[in-house]
């Protein structure tokens, strides 16, 4: 939005036409729609008389000697949308007409090649374009995001990839799918975002809470998946992308079609399907790690100069098999898995998706309307509805394999409205409101105690942000936001758990019904959150850019942190939430400093995030059951500090050659207890060399080296009593895996097929050397190695 210039063409044109005489003048002036600055060199054309003219420095133009009647006038400017209008001449006429600037039409489109983007003016940002996303067409959103410095992921195997920004994930990372904040139970470690990576045209990552428009609780950051902006001209275009991969012996197909009409109406359809069987580590099959994924989206709208609307429906369904060997009974089984170094269950390759597995379905519907007000700004209003259903199937006894152990349905209604005042050249103000209602239903038919209770949640929010430009070099930005959250849950507690947690003294009034061995309770909690952001950006003519941002953000605890209560088989642990958990508050300082020279460029992005009452989940003790001993993981709050830096650089040593280098480091510390935070990503160093020869059918080949350091800063392992060994043993649950190095090769070529149709083929080999490795942030690292070599062939047809 930085240097947004919105054009208005104002035809100010007295033109006198008498009955049968042709001696009237049409005079006018072309100005910016918002701030009414004159636009020079705009062309004005009257088709009936075949005459055109160009505006002067003041935006003025004139036609002389026109007859009485109605004229079709076409006004255009190099940076503006062409406008057709009718001017009636019955005398010297003075007519005002309004046009829109291209930059506003395409306001969300980023400039390719820039490392400094403009979702915010001052926060750290990065983005992925269509071409970069397509490389991950056969993977997931999280896989694609990991190619950005500072973005990592918390994995459960290869198919459940949960993005983490600057070391933080889950509820601290907001994901927006075409303007809709995803409500897909993001509080679970083994819950990946319910979006199809193929449905987005571009993805922007805002590292931190600098963009208050999107929410005040983005302590980690914001991920924006965006659709292509529709060019308002009569057109029909589309593409089909087929991906085949050897590891998993499957692939994906995705196709989309766009139809745009000259009057501004458009429709778009997109669908994709992905199917993989068992994935393979270098030495063995990772039994039960297949996936079946379906995505579909339909969009229609009207895009006019002053107003427009759009509606969208998106469907996502994924059935994901979870490594069989990772489903375990008690702490002894876990010790055995950690010690054996190889998965306990290795079966021949299959496409079958067996238990344990999860099936998630997400429906998203939205309707949006916008209107621009002359000389003032733009108003948006949007309603969206989301329905998220999650089934998790365990290995169960007694013909219960088809009964899910977890069956949750989360429904969300959101209404948002915002107004952008952008009429003035050097400042812009935006304010908005949000209302949200959410209902979670935990089906009791599972025969397993609810891990997450039934609850209703209400959110209200209001924000105001402003930016101010000083000259051509400096931009200042500031904003504030208030959010109210209420959570109203209905939860059953075992009486023994209620007493063990010490709730009988603090929360006795929450008990609604005493059922003997359990209580039905009705916790209702309110949270008031304040967030704020301020920053400055500087860019000089010699290619130097600097951005500084401070963001204050507050996040209310999520349902898992408050209410979690049950046994997780996949981790052999009992997870316990706490009703006493308060909101957490983050102060994040970030700096971006970069310069682009003729043959090279660099960006340095240090940051510091100080979080009060940081909520974390870690082992607190052991509980005994008939099944044996289980480590208890409890949520606790502490003060934490995350310090990190992302470095990136590129070099063009010779024609056709380019190298890219990126390094990311983050250190997390519990400052109250002076111990490292759990699940902080390892330092990473990526180097890539690329050769491009456009004359050989756009031939491109790249070799990437990825070195992941060992995470040396981890909390201490815990000591548990092993009933099997009849003694206390160290459970090496926090021991990090060794460092590893992967080589990835990719190449592509394009061939014209005729007309606008083009065929692009690409071949990639991931983990070229077939190295065995385990990653610290893969929850299945206790059970099996990560993926071995994968050969990926892609064919893309654009038309």
């Amino acid at each position, binding site marked *: 939005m930085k240097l947004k210039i919105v054009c208005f063409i104002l035809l100010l044109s007295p033109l006198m036409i008498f009955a049968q005489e042709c001696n009237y003048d049409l005079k006018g002036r072309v100005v910016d729609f918002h701030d009414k600055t004159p636009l020079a060199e705009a062309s004005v054309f009257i088709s009936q008389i075949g005459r055109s003219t160009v505006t002067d420095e003041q935006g003025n133009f004139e036609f002389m000697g026109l007859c009485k009647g109605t004229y079709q006038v076409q006004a255009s400017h190099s940076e503006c949308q062409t406008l057709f209008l009718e001017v009636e001449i019955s005398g010297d006429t003075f007519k005002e007409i309004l046009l829109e600037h291209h930059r506003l039409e395409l306001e969300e489109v980023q400039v390719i090649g820039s490392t400094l983007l403009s979702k915010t003016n001052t926060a750290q940002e990065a983005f992925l374009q269509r071409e970069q996303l397509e490389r991950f067409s056969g993977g997931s959103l999280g896989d694609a995001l990991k190619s950005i410095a500072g973005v990592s992921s918390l994995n459960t195997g290869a198919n459940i990839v949960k993005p983490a920004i600057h070391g933080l994930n889950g509820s601290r990372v907001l994901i927006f799918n075409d303007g809709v904040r995803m409500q897909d139970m993001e509080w679970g470690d083994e819950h990946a975002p319910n979006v199809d990576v193929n449905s987005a045209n571009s993805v922007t990552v805002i590292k931190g809470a600098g963009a208050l428009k999107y929410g005040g609780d983005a302590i980690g950051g914001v991920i924006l998946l965006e659709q292509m902006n529709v060019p308002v001209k009569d057109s029909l275009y589309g593409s089909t992308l087929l991906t085949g991969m050897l590891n998993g012996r499957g692939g994906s197909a995705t196709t989309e079609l766009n139809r745009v009409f000259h009057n501004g109406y458009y429709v778009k359809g997109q669908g994709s399907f992905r199917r993989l069987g068992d994935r393979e580590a270098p030495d063995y099959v990772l039994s039960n790690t297949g996936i079946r994924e379906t995505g579909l989206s339909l969009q229609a709208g*009207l895009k006019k100069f002053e*107003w427009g*609307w759009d509606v969208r429906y998106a469907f996502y369904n994924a059935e994901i098999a979870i490594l069989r060997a990772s*489903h*375990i*009974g*008690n702490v*002894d*089984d876990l010790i*055995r898995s950690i010690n054996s170094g190889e998965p306990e269950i290795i079966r021949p390759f299959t496409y079958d998706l067996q238990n344990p597995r999860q099936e998630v379905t997400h429906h998203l519907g939205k*309707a*949006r*309307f916008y209107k621009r007000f002359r000389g003032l700004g733009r108003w948006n*209003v949007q*309603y969206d*509805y989301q329905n998220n259903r999650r089934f998790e199937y365990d*290995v*169960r*006894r*007694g013909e*219960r394999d088809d009964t899910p152990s977890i069956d949750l349905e989360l429904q969300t*209604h*959101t*209404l948002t409205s915002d107004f952008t005042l952008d009429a003035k050249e050097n400042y812009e103000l935006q304010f908005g409101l949000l*209302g949200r*209602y959410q209902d979670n239903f*935990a089906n*009791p038919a*599972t*025969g*397993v*105690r609810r891990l997450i*209770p*039934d609850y*209703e949640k209400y959110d209200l929010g209001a924000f105001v942000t402003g930016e101010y430009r000083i000259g051509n070099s400096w931009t200042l930005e500031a904003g504030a936001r208030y959010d109210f959250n209420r959570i109203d849950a*209905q939860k*059953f507690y*075992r*009486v*023994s*758990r209620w007493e*063990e947690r010490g709730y009988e003294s603090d929360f006795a009034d929450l008990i609604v*019904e005493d059922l003997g*061995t*359990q209580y*039905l309770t*009705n916790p209702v909690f309110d949270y008031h959150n304040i967030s704020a952001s301020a920053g400055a950006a500087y860019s000089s003519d010699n290619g130097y850019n600097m951005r500084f941002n401070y963001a204050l953000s507050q996040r209310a605890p999520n349902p898992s942190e408050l209410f979690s209560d*049950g*046994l997780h088989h996949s981790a052999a642990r*009992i997870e316990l939430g706490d009703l006493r958990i308060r909101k957490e508050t983050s102060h994040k300082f970030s700096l971006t400093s970069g310069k682009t020279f003729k043959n090279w460029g660099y960006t340095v992005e240090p940051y510091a995030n100080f979080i009060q009452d940081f909520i974390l989940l870690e082992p607190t003790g052991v*509980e*005994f*059951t*008939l*099944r*044996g001993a*289980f480590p208890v993981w409890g949520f606790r709050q502490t003060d934490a500090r995350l310090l990190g830096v992302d470095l990136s650089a590129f070099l063009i040593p010779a024609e056709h050659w380019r190298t890219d280098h990126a390094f990311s480091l983050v250190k997390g510390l519990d400052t109250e207890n002076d111990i490292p935070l759990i699940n902080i990503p390892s330092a990473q160093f990526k180097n890539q060399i690329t050769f491009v020869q456009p004359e050989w059918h756009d031939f491109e080949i790249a070799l990437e080296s990825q070195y992941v350091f060992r995470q040396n800063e981890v909390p201490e392992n815990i000591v548990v009593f092993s*009933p*099997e060994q*009849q003694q206390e043993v160290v459970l090496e649950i926090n021991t990090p895996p060794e460092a590893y190095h992967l080589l990835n090769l990719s190449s592509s070529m394009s061939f014209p097929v005729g007309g606008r149709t083009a065929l692009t083929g690409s071949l990639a080999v991931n983990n070229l050397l077939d190295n065995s490795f385990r990653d610290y942030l893969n929850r299945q690292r206790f059970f099996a190695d990560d993926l071995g070599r994968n050969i990926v062939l892609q064919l893309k047809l654009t038309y």
Partner: protein
Amino acid sequence: MKTLRTILSFAIVGALFVSCSNDDDAPAPVNEEELITTMIITLSPQGGGTVVTLQSEDLDGDGPGAPEIDISGPLDASTTYTGTIQLLNKTENPAEDITLEVQAEDEEHQFFYEVTGAITDVTYTDQDGNGNPVGLSFELTTGAAGAATLQATLRHEPKKPNDGTLADAGGETDISQPFNITVQ
């Protein structure tokens, strides 16, 4: 402006959803079907004598309460006992006999009895459809008087056949309970 009206009506419907709270119907409690609260091992001396029961009971399942152990009395030295095992879910009324489920899926289950001290041996006396042991019934032999431990483990989906050790069998642990017993 027709479009505007459509959009506004959408917005109003949305606002209604936002403002109208669901009726606060109390959720139904979950019937914990798979829970095993109680394990009872009954040891009957062959040739007559006092029957000994070993019981472990954890009525709150995965809750914080630890299992309560109840051993009816000491075992006799140098005696062979016929052993049976019973699993119950006492959170249901009447208590559900989980033994029947294990019996129905005997090819996917196996009990393991590890002994030390004055209990010298445990042998299986039952078989599943494939001729592999299940462990719902067994024979237990005591040696000279002294202290002994019996560790009873139920594994779901173990490797079958196996060499009789937990390490070789693998699978997931459904029950794991040691008993400290006196033999006199």
